[in-house]
């Protein structure tokens, strides 16, 4: 008998900033205890939620758009190999160079080599999740290259020696008073009279960044979309910093996850409606930049990043996570994210999508607590513009996390689950168990309970055990 191919084992797992130092519940405990963080997050997510709801509500065909977005992405994923080769051909034909990176380390080596070959010691960056994921700034720093983030929020994170906590608004955990302090401390040459008025803060960043745009020889970007039929790349943004980076420097390097493709130019029509409405709550984002291959006076390199994506694609119950267009609508509606912020998730991908994407990119064993970081309330699925069924995927990944540990001695949880299932699979056993439980000292005391029930009674009382179960009442005549 031949063994089935073990595709999950052959595709490389993702490395880079996808794993935290602590399990989610431990990291979340500190976040929940920080009242400033909770206020910042509560205010910011409530504002974005309301904006999104308003602009989504005004489109009568929103559900059809979502279905179209999901279908286009599914078609791409089903034929990803062909589309990627088509993209490579088109980009190469237009004078660009395509590089293939198996994982974060390979991508970092490629980009570092390209920057060095261009003779540059500084690069300007367009905000990009892919380069956050691979830890490009750190890799460049190790090679003596300074990377300047030019997105305002990303700049705040970089100057604050901080980590992004949101996909779209990486400094969502900061308020403007904190931002003013960071600018005064880290930016250099800032007027000490700087106020925390948003316009004043933006002007300080603008002055700081303008010098970088005009002097940098190399820019590094991500991509929101790549059109396979034309080889066109697209970046959508709000501040114009992306447009500057993409057009001014002599060398442009774009790092893009392999799932970012759409088959045809026409498909952009769907996503350019879905993305801004879902992410910033705008009908249209202020800047959409598109380019095809190299342009006059500028060399172009495209780095295609796998880093666990092929392994994710191999799981039919998990691959829908690759539909994600990084809008972060699921973060903004998530009651868990709203209380913990992004850092608790450990990965650069936080929130509901992070809880399904990070464990798949790394393999569930490396992110075993993330699939459990959800109450399964379902708000993420409703908000997702490409209809990723995150709750069902979380449940699927939970089973994987449990199965990964099954070969060992059963944990207390495993033993309890097995015992409960054994009891409840047989009505007679269940009936007996209910009677016994009512007289057990734990149930009667309801104050000093062993873990994990101790976690319940820290903030909540247990219900009074009833004098009679429902089935006993029914058996007694049910009147």
């Amino acid at each position: 008998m031949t063994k089935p191919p073990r595709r999950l084992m052959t595709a490389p797992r993702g490395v880079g900033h996808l794993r935290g130092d602590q399990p989610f519940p431990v990291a979340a405990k500190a976040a929940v205890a920080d009242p400033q963080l909770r206020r910042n997050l509560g205010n910011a997510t409530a504002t974005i939620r309301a904006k999104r709801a308003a602009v989504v509500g005004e489109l009568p065909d929103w559900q059809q758009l979502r279905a179209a977005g999901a279908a286009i992405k599914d078609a791409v994923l089903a034929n990803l190999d062909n589309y990627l080769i088509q993209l490579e051909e088109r980009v190469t034909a237009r004078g660009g160079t395509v590089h293939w990176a198996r994982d974060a380390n390979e991508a970092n080596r490629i980009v570092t080599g390209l920057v060095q070959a261009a003779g540059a010691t500084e690069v300007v960056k367009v905000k990009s999740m892919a380069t956050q994921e691979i830890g490009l700034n750190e890799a460049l720093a190790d090679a003596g290259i300074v990377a300047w983030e030019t997105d305002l929020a990303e700049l705040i994170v970089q100057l604050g020696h901080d980590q992004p906590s949101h996909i779209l608004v990486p400094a969502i955990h900061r308020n403007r008073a904190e931002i003013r302090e960071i600018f005064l401390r880290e930016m250099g040459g800032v007027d000490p009279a700087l106020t925390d008025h948003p316009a004043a803060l933006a002007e300080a960043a603008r002055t700081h960044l303008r010098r970088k745009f005009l002097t940098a020889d190399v820019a590094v970007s991500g991509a929101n979309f790549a059109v396979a039929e034309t080889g066109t790349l697209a970046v959508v943004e709000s501040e114009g910093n992306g447009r500057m980076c993409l057009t001014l420097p002599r060398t442009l390097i774009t790092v893009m996850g392999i799932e970012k493709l759409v088959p045809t130019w026409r498909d952009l029509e769907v996503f350019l409606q879905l993305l801004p409405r879902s992410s910033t709550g705008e009908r249209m984002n202020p800047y959409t930049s598109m380019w095809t291959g190299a342009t006059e006076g500028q060399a172009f390199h495209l780095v295609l990043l796998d880093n666990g994506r092929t392994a994710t694609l191999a799981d039919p119950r998990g691959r829908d996570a690759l539909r994600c267009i990084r809008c972060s609508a699921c973060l903004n509606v998530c009651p868990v994210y709203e209380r913990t912020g992004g850092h608790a998730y450990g990965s650069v991908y936080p929130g509901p999508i992070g809880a399904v994407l990070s464990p798949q990119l790394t393999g569930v064993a490396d992110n075993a607590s993330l699939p459990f970081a959800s109450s399964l309330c379902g708000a993420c699925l409703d908000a997702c513009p490409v209809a990723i069924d995150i709750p069902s995927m979380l449940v699927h990944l939970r089973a994987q996390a449990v199965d990964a540990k099954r070969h060992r001695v059963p944990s207390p949880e495993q033993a309890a689950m097995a015992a409960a299932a054994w009891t409840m699979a047989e009505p007679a056993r269940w009936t007996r168990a209910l009677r016994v439980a009512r007289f057990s000292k734990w149930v009667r005391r309801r104050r000093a309970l062993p873990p994990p029930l101790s976690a319940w009674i820290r903030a909540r009382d247990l219900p009074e055990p009833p004098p009679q179960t429902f089935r006993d009442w029914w058996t007694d005549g049910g009147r």
Partner: protein
Amino acid sequence: MRVALFVTCLVDGLFPDVGKATVRLLRRLGHDVEVPLRQTCCGQMHVNTGYPREALPLVRNHVETFLDYDAIVVPSGSCTGSIRHQHADVARQFGDDTLAEGAQIVAKHTYELSEFLVDVLGVTDVGAYYPHRVTYHPTCHSLRLLRVGDRPLRLLREVRGLDLVELPDAESCCGFGGTFALKNPDVSTAMLADKMSNVLATRAEVCSAGDSSCLMHIGGGLSRLHAGVRTVHLAEILAAS
């Protein structure tokens, strides 16, 4: 029409009054509900905690118990959601296609209480009298998995004497989430705190919902605060007269 009650394990063991209320309500509406005692648990806790293998015998027991009924009424949105969206899938995962077919049939005949009253029986005025100030928490699975919409509110609005007050930020999760409350107690408690302050802001005497699990969570928190607000299942209000 042969109508069965799936009372759920939680109601059976801890909140029998919810089951009794459901029986009395359906009888008052002229339906002699049956309670097959072979029923135990839908297995949702196992599935949602990563133990579908352990849930499989529970799914089998459930399907075999309820296969022959025309309608199965459940006083829980969450358990109805599991029966509708998880049972057949669990059976299929472990290669039992016959069980999956049975599960689909049972799922088609299974109704959350407000669905059964409004859609099957076609009533919104169930003849109840409940002279209290009540706020209603639409539980996540009723809302987003079953899409019961405003059915519970339509039922409550017809209850005589009842003063229904809107719950601010009603559609936010209370933080229960089954074993989530135990695995992530700090986040769960933070969510509960916000839910409770919204409940208290309504100055209602009673917080109602269609799920005893969520009510156990909210009620457990309110009781710890000695807040003086009671949690009462929708079935108990609709059965009151």
